[in-house]
Structure formats: structure tokens, C-alpha cells
């Protein structure tokens, strides 16, 4: 018997296509979540339990001792003051680097998309080209430059390096975003008598929170996760959290405290993770906006 089709087309609950999609998604989710699960579980176990070797079993007795140790007393090379030193070092590197690089790059992007000066295209091309040169090539020259400037092995030095390396991608990001704003808005503001900074601060910046959020995410995660520049340019006293984490995990003395290592790793990864969770929506939106228009 056939039913005369009328109204909404009926939807099957167990559509094979849909089932396949969910299956693939579930497998992918497990694949990525399993290591995280192991890390969390291990970090909550005492050493005797860790030695049993059942990495997937949940802790019999939950203890936060490893977390406290990782933060406060774990040995990072010569000192045994835990990761907290690295955390504050990272913060001191992160905040000025993010603020300065975004401040400069946003003005760069604004100038490149609205105030077409002579040679703007060449300038932009050079800037973009810069982002394709491997870091390793530039390390030695940069060491010499920072040494000559007297900022090698200091917070200023590493902030300087992060600001420079953030410039190509951030400028591109801001330029593309500003280029997507209507040109007529800029013209109207000029007729209304606003100047270079007036248009930037009163018209463009208020229209750009999404791209600023994207830039902040990019920079925070990038700089926080950085190891190379930190270990080279910051100096022993200012090693960022990633470097100290490495020192904890790779220490060749004594017993391997897997629970402490896991806790330390999660602590180090917490900042970018938190950023992603808080602003994932903006991140996707901004990357899409930057990618499509340009």
C-alpha cells in the first residue's frame, strides 16, 4: 500500500549515512580523548599504583599529591621550586608579547588595507614571505642581533623575538579582515574629518572584536607553547613553563615520577586549552573570515 505524499517528508531514525557519520566521529573522539584520559587518571594515582602498570584503570585512591608536587616542589634542573616559576615566567613573556605584537600588527593591517602608500604591495609581499622562512635559518643572526642590542638572555629579548615572529601572520590576518570592511566607511570617515588614528580607534577597532579575539588566541597559544625561542633567548632565570616542563620530564636522576609528569604536562597545557574552550567559536569564525576574503 502506498501513501499519497503530503507535507513534510518523513525522516528515518536510523539512516545508514547518519550512522556512518556518527561512528566515524565517535572513533575520532575516542582516539583523541584516550591519551587525555590516561594522563588525568595517572596524575591522580600514587606512585605505588602507577608502578602496577594498569594505565587505563581509574585510581583506587585519588591523590592530588602529584599536582601539588608538580606545581610547587618538582626539580627543574638546579632548582626544586616546581612549575610555578615557569608559569610566572611564561606570563611575563606572554602578556607583553601578545599586547605589543597585536597593537603593531593591527595598525599595520589597517594601514595596508586603507592607506595605500607607495610600495605597500612590496612591503606586504616581503612581510608574507618572511613567514615562510624556517625559524632555524634565522636563529643565529637573531642571537647576534639581540646580543648587540644587549637584550640577549632577558625577558625583553624573548618578547622582542615573539613580537617580530608574530608580525607576518598577524598583519595578514588584520589586513584581510580590514579589507573585508566596506571601503566607503573609510571614505565617509575621511569626509567627516577623522584622521589616521581617529578612523582606526573610533571606526575600525570598534568593528573588529572578532579579529582581535582570533589574534589573541593565535598569539597566546603560539607563545605559550613556544619552546625554542624560550630556551635560546630568555636566559636561564626566565625559562618559560614549556622549558621547565621538559626539565622535569626529562630529568635523568632518580625515579621517573609519571604521575608528577602527567600533572605537570596538564598544568602546562591548561592555558591554551582554557583559551580554546572559552573562545572556540570566535577562533573558527576568525580563521574562516581571514581565509576566504583576501
Amino acid at each position: 500500500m502506498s501513501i499519497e505524499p503530503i507535507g513534510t517528508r518523513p525522516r528515518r531514525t536510523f539512516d545508514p549515512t547518519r550512522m556512518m557519520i556518527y561512528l566515524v566521529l565517535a572513533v575520532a573522539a575516542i582516539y583523541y580523548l584516550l591519551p587525555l584520559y590516561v594522563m588525568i587518571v595517572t596524575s591522580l594515582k600514587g606512585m605505588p599504583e602507577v608502578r602496577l602498570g594498569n594505565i587505563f584503570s581509574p585510581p583506587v585512591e585519588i591523590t592530588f599529591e602529584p599536582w601539588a608536587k608538580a606545581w610547587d616542589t618538582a626539580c627543574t634542573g638546579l632548582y626544586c621550586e616546581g612549575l610555578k616559576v615557569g608559569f610566572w615566567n611564561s606570563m611575563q613573556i606572554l602578556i607583553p608579547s601578545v599586547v605589543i605584537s597585536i597593537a603593531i600588527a593591527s595598525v599595520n593591517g589597517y594601514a595596508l588595507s586603507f592607506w595605500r602608500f607607495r610600495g605597500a604591495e612590496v612591503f606586504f609581499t616581503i612581510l608574507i614571505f618572511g613567514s615562510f622562512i624556517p625559524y632555524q635559518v634565522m636563529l643565529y643572526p637573531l642571537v647576534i642581533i639581540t646580543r648587540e642590542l644587549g637584550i640577549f638572555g632577558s625577558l625583553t629579548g624573548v618578547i622582542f623575538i615573539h613580537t617580530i615572529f608574530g608580525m607576518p601572520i598577524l598583519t595578514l590576518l588584520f589586513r584581510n579582515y580590514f579589507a573585508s570592511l566596506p571601503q566607503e566607511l573609510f571614505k565617509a570617515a575621511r569626509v567627516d574629518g577623522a584622521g589616521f588614528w581617529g578612523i582606526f580607534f573610533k571606526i575600525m577597532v570598534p568593528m573588529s572584536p572578532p579579529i582581535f579575539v582570533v589574534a589573541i588566541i593565535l598569539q597566546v597559544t603560539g607563545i605559550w607553547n613556544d619552546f625554542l625561542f624560550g630556551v635560546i633567548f630568555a636566559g636561564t632565570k626566565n625559562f618559560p613553563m614549556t622549558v621547565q616542563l621538559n626539565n622535569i620530564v626529562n630529568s635523568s636522576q632518580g625515579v621517573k615520577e609519571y604521575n608528577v609528569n602527567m600533572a605537570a604536562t596538564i598544568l602546562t597545557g591548561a592555558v591554551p586549552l582554557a583559551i580554546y574552550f572559552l573562545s572556540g567559536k570566535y577562533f573558527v569564525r576568525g580563521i574562516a573570515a581571514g581565509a576566504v576574503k583576501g
Partner: protein
Amino acid sequence: MKSIEIKDLSLSFGDFKVLEKLNLDIYDGEFLVLLGASGCGKSTLLNCVAGLLDISDGQIFIKGKNVTWKEPKDRDIGMVFQSYALYPQMSVRGNLSFGLKNARIPKPEIEKRVARAAEILQIESLLHRKPAELSGGQRQRVAIGRALVREVDVFLFDEPLSNLDAKLRAELRVEIKRLHQKLNNTMIYVTHDQIEALTLADRIAIMRGGKVQQLDTPQVIYNHPVNKYVAAFIGSPGMNFLTGRLVAGEKPGFNFNGLDVDLSRYAFNDTTPSGESEAWLGIRPEHIHVGPEAVKKAFSHTVEVEVVEPMGSDTLVWSKLADQEFRFRMDGQLSVKVGEELMIGFDPVSASLFDSKTEIRL
């Protein structure tokens, strides 16, 4: 008195010449429309006058002052854009007062001017709203208001109605005309819409390839286009062009496909050409008469109806006149059928003759 004077203005991007040696005088209180197809340089010219584009050569005077190197804000102009270009994060009040604040005009004066502009444009109730909460027509009113509060003598409009739907466009068109009658200031208005141009303008400048083709009143441009381009551009549906031979002399005539049009009453430009030459005869669809009236005209002939397009008040008929494409308008109340034979006729007085090579009016 001259309000705006453009002298030998040229603009090129690299090797590409957008505007070339352009001269244009606009008088006080005049409504001038720059009309042309896209890419003809009309918006570019407006941007040059506004100071938003640096010119390559020439001079621009506004109210007798040489403003060639001046910033837009110092040119005493107000500008209205196609996309409205309202500042999205500011309220309507903020949008209207932004320019005045930049000019450091005292607060009470700003209040006064905003209130006056809002009253003229009837947007008083919208002052606290954000542009996103306004309709297209309201947004364009605010955009006009932003030019109004500047209390300047020159208004520049860059296709201000193109983003609106047809009905709203017609309404705002009338409002812009009213505004002009009320303020009596100089307005330059860029559009590609000939209806806007014909209805609003005191004078129209038709542009093509960075040059002004014809600058005159709407009537003259409609009746006496200087060349074939202008003739084809103005009028909807477009002018019919018949190709044939112009026979000059005592009794001038136009021969095409064995037919002959008597041109003895046609007003030739300056001098009557002599001898024989290839030419175009242009005649507007609305200048063609149908039926018994047609026989009384200087030229009449029968045509076969091919396509009928009823448009309400009148009907557009497509046909062939001696194997050449021929359209004409007739009363919408009369019924015509495809295949029907109709008698059509016209007076050469309302026609235009163009040289086939130079396309200039004869």
C-alpha cells in the same frame, strides 16, 4: 556663479587613464547628474571632487577656492554613499554628530544641527537607534543627514539609491528633489539609472571612457543627443537605429533597403552635409505613430508584429522595418496580435541622424 570648477582634470592608475583632460563647471544651486555605464569614471570623478582620490593633473575649485590638494574635510562638502556607510557601532545621533565632533564644534551647536537635520529628514524618532535596526530607506536618510549637518554648499551623492528596492527608490528620489528645492545647494549626483538622471537633474553629464560626451539639460539630451552612444544610452526602451545612406543636397533624404525618408524638415547640425554618405537614422519608440495617424506623417510604412510586450499604460511592439530591427510603443489599451500588419509612421523632426563612422550627430 560657479560653485565647482574642474579644470583639465586627469587621473591615471599606472598606464590606464581613468579621466582625461576633463573640464566641468557647475553653477551655484545646480543639480548636476553624472550619468554613465559602470567603469566610465563617473564615481572616480566624484571621488576626485571629494578629495578621496589624488588626481594626476589639473585643478579643482570649490566656491572659488583651489581645493586640489585639500583634505576632504576641508573642502566644504557632504557626501552620501551607495552602501550608506553608516558607522555600525554608533547610534543615529552618533553618526550625525561624528563629523561635527571632529571639527570641534561646540556641543549646543551640534545638538541644534542634529535636531534640524532630523526634523528635515523625519528621523527624530530614530536618533537613539543603531544602523542595524533601521530599514534601507531609513539608513539612506541618516546618510543624507550626515551630509546635511555639515551645513555645506556642496552635496555629493554616489549612487545613493542603487541599494534600495524600486518603490523606495522612487520615494527617496522625490525626497532628494524636495531637499534640493528646500536647501537650494549645489548637488552632484552619480548614477547609472537614466530615470534618476532625467527626473532629478538640472543638467546631465553623460560620461564614457573618462570623458564627458554631452553636458546639457535632460530635454536637450533626450531630443538632441550629440552622438549615437548618448542616443542609445538615454531612453527606455532604447532608440531604433536604421542603417542606410544619407543623400544630401536641395532635397535631403535617407535611403535604406529601398525605402526613402524625406529629411527636408530635419534640423541639420551647423552645416548640411553634401553628397552621399553612410549614416544611422535614430528614432525613439515613443515617437512612432500607429494606425490612421501614421499615414499623415512624413514617413509611413507597414510592418508585421513579431513580439508584443504589454507594459500596462502602453505596449511595446517588436517588428522589422525593411529587414531592420524596429520597436515602437503604442497605447496599452489597444490590442495587437503577433503576425498582424500595422501602419507606422514618424516625423524626421523627432529623429536623429548620425554619421556611420564618427557616430556624431549630423
